[in-house]
């Protein structure tokens, strides 16, 4: 804002009048877009379905309670599958993500023009497809079951882990690396002494964070036939066995809470 004088006083405003009007205009445009979108959604919604929304909720609620506790005996194995899928998937993903991250980080990549774009492509392509879609593809490739889900989880996680890890690698303090290099250490030793200690907290945080996400993702992969507790959820929904559905949701909730608790503990211990 250029200085202005009014009646001999120096007047200060954050923005010029013109830029202030432009800002108001932008807000107006945003508001119009919002109203138009709302209109569009409203036109395509079957509002009459909403007439008895309360009743339906109460109805499903009453059918779903109490949960069918005895069904739990058929859930132990699927929930174990689910947790195993999430855990192994995360481990495989990390094993593959580490080299990708080192290839993608500007300060450690062997070649900025050949290797780095390739690594970034891996990161983007694995990240852009949802694990449910990966599972759909893999079920038709390797057949239904836990294995397809495991692969889906690990592929989806590579990009996520590698991206966060390579950002951590790019943020390390270069002087610590320099100091190790100055001792006459080999490139591998520089990595182990100069870089790895600096990214360990990030690595641990990423690992448990992704594991936490993967537990939640693996509970639904069964919907497309990729094993785990989602299979039971699917079949229960199909036959409208609401007491079973509510029990499954409770079990999933419980598993997720346990997962969050463990990952919070691990993160607290490491950082």
């Amino acid at each position, binding site marked *: 804002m250029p200085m202005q004088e009014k009646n001999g006083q120096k007047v200060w405003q954050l923005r010029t009048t013109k830029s202030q009007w432009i800002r108001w205009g932008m807000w107006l445009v945003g508001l119009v877009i919002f109203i138009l979108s709302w209109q569009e959604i409203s036109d395509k919604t079957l509002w009459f379905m909403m007439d008895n929304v309360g009743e339906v909720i109460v109805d499903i609620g009453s059918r779903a309670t109490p949960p069918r506790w005895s069904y739990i005996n058929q859930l132990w194995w699927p929930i174990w599958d689910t947790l195993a899928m999430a855990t192994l998937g995360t481990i495989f993903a990390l094993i593959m993500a580490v080299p990708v991250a080192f290839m993608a980080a500007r300060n450690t990549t062997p070649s900025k023009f050949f290797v780095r774009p390739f690594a970034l492509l891996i990161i983007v392509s694995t990240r852009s497809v949802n694990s449910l879609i990966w599972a759909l593809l893999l079920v038709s490739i390797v057949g239904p079951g836990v294995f397809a889900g495991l692969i889906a989880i690990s592929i989806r996680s590579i990009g996520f882990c590698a991206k966060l890890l390579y950002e951590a690698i790019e943020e390390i303090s270069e002087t610590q690396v*320099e100091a*190790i290099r100055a*001792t*006459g*250490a080999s490139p591998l030793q520089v990595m*182990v002494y100069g870089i790895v200690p*600096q990214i360990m907290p990030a690595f641990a945080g990423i690992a448990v964070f992704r594991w936490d996400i993967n537990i939640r993702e693996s509970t639904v992969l069964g919907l497309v036939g990729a094993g785990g507790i989602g299979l039971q959820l699917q079949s229960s929904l199909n036959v409208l066995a609401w007491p079973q559905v509510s029990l499954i949701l409770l079990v999933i909730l419980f598993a997720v809470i346990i997962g969050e608790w463990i990952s919070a503990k691990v993160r607290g211990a490491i950082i």
Partner: protein
Amino acid sequence: MLQLNGLTKVYNTGDKALSDVTLSIPDGQVVALIGPSGAGKSTLIRCVNRLVEPTSGEALLDDINITTLGSGGLRKARRKMGMIFQEYALVERLTVMENVLSGRLGYVGFWRSLFRKFPQKDVDEAYRLLDRVGLLAMVDKRADELSGGQRQRVGIARALIQNPSLLLVDEPTASLDPKTSRQIMRLIVELCEERGLSAIINIHDVALAQMFVQRVIGLETGKVVFDGAPTELTPEVLTQIYGEEDWEATIEKVDDDAEEAV
């Protein structure tokens, strides 16, 4: 003995950080390198161990031309040059012992270093050095738990365990308080004497440099503009290096300091 012949560094940006620096440092001599910020002091010592690649010229350590070495030879040569940094440059999340032992990486194979299985004589030497710099009680502390002065002592131990013949010291006291600065400088100079090491010490504090070293080299925009004894640092010389300023207060009365340094 370190010999620099026409050492020149031009950065990619076109900045000429060093131009045609020729000097030689005999064994056992401790040299202070002074000059304004951006004069090329850090570049000079980094060109010696090739953390920065010199554009032209050569650096010879004990008659080995460092500038033409391949990567294997360079690693061997770096073992002979201990480096001490301004911000200590310790690996913050490693313990004091690991930091000191990292000075032996050039001598130890990859797998041994990965599993921290250093030879017993290296461990003995590490204990001896930590005792010498007064940090024996801190062996298992993590580097980020130490104070500035303590960290710099670890940095010194890491450089010395390489068993170097030359120390490259980059602003060792710039992050320290005046008292600790003197202690650290005294420690470096004493250790150089004990072991007959030569050293290049980049330093901003002219008075501190005069107090401890035998020779001062003044660098200005990449050129050597002064090379002589600390007593020869007159206001005229400092004006030539740093520019116009009242220098009388900066220059220590060398008689007093000779006593203090003992």
